[in-house]
């Protein structure tokens, strides 16, 4: 099957610090692909390139065969890439419904249509009860949900989740996992950065491990956890041999 998203030899550095070095991988339509790696491995930086927030120094990113790298965040959003942020960025002067409507307006012109779209998306994300609460009053878990809802309201082809489950209680994290599965069931492809291994590994079909800006390895969750390089990157040399 043709890849939905292709990353080709992508490199990006910030003032001499190489955040991403010749990264290449494909995301197949409909899959949940995990993006793992220790702090500073270049995961968020890669997300910023894919979502158009930064322009890669070299290499390219293709969505359904069309080049999207360097076009900027607005063009990427219109092309069908939606994202959440590691540090939540809700529109705090607005209610939950209004936040989600901003996402819905990406493809809709009329307020009525955007409202209907927002209602549907809030229902899907379990936010209907909080629809009229000001966004800044939400709990951290609800704010994560709000970001997912806002992104989904843009009707994306691929959703980038940046540490959506980090910092949540185990119960909240399990609810988050259920939401991610539901999003996948809707036909949206997912690329997720995550730290919480025991939560993310059962969820993803494949994972890419980054370390020091490079792709360390790619494989199924079972392969990943046994890979000596991965163990070394996370735990150090002492544990890698075993």
């Amino acid at each position, binding site marked *: 099957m043709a890849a939905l998203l292709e990353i080709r030899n992508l490199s990006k550095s910030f003032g001499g610090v190489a955040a991403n070095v010749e990264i290449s991988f494909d995301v197949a339509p409909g899959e949940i692909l995990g993006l793992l790696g220790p702090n500073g491995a270049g995961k968020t930086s890669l997300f910023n390139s894919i979502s158009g927030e930064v322009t890669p120094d070299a290499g390219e990113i293709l969505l359904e065969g069309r080049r999207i790298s360097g076009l900027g965040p607005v063009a990427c959003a219109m092309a069908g890439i939606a994202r959440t942020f590691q540090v939540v960025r809700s529109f705090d002067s607005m209610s939950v419904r209004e936040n989600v*409507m901003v*996402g819905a*307006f990406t493809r809709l012109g009329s307020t009525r249509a955007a409202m209907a779209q927002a209602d549907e998306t809030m229902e899907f994300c379990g936010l209907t009860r909080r629809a009229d609460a000001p966004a800044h009053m939400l709990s951290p878990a609800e704010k994560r949900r709000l970001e997912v809802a806002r992104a989904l309201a843009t009707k994306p082809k691929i959703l980038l989740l940046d540490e959506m489950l980090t910092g949540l209680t185990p119960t909240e994290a399990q609810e988050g996992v259920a939401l991610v599965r539901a999003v996948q069931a809707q036909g949206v492809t997912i690329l997720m950065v995550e730290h919480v291994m025991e939560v993310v590994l059962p969820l993803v079909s494949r994972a890419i491990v980054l370390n020091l800006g490079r792709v360390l390895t790619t494989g199924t969750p079972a392969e990943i956890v046994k890979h000596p390089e991965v163990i070394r990157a996370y735990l150090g040399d002492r544990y890698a041999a075993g």
Partner: protein
Amino acid sequence: MQNAITLRRRRELITAGVLVALLIVLPLPFHDPYTRNLMILTLLYAALAQSWNILGGTCGQISLGHSLYFGVGAYVSTLLFVWHGVPPWFGMLAAAAVAGLLALLVGWPCFRLSGHYYAIATVVVQEIAYLLFLNWDDIGGASGVYVPFHGQSWLNLQFRTAKLPYFYVMLGFFALTWIAAWWIEGSRWGFSWRAVKDDVIAARSLGVRVFPSKMAAAAISGGLTGIGGAIFAQFVGYIDPDSILSGPLSILIALPAVLGGVGTLWGPLLGAAVLIPLRELSSTFLGSSGSGVDLMLYGALIMVVALWRPQGLVSLFQRGRNGSAS
């Protein structure tokens, strides 16, 4: 479809209808020109602040140079009237167009600056325009322009000593700015602009075109302010750079919105209703010896509001909006 947003918007519209009805009869019991004059000025500043609020409140781009659009609007309409006898109703349209274009012209370089730098740039641009107009002899320079009296008529917006017609013109102008703000609030534009104000990066990631959003907000805000300048010129019958294109005026345009509640629909009117009478009273009681005291008053007022009601006076009328919706 009915939800909290549609219900709120309907309530706002009904409140506005009732308010306009009240304002229509408000000046009738007051016959002295002083009180009516005060009402006219209050409505003028309410409308100007409402125009400012479209850019400053909704889109979050704080302009401290809005007297530029007011002054240029006044000059455009007045010079068309003086030189070519164009009635101010058409002059107003020209004023709106020129002021709107000017706002785009200012925005083109200045919106590339973020945060406080944009505000500073607007001050600078307005000061440049002030100096330019002060020394531009073809349009009166520092001695200004007198609006010749062409006889009492609605067409020319000239009424010898009557204040009432001007009151209704100002009320119409205020209603126009309010309806514009209300309409924007419920449209795709309003949502995009507020997203830009709250978080530019998140807005961009949702496909909001940030720069065009700011430009559109600036053009509408500047254009409406220009209409105010055109009306004001007919009202006072004389314009010069010091009275319509000055730094203090720029502050006075923004102040009612800040005092009443930035980004709110009722803040500008409420702020003006407190600020403008206060200003007139202070200048009446203190006379010329008190020049500058009014500025101290504004400062004190803003400090009190900032400490006590950071959301502006309008928050006094809102029920506590807490998160427990269910």
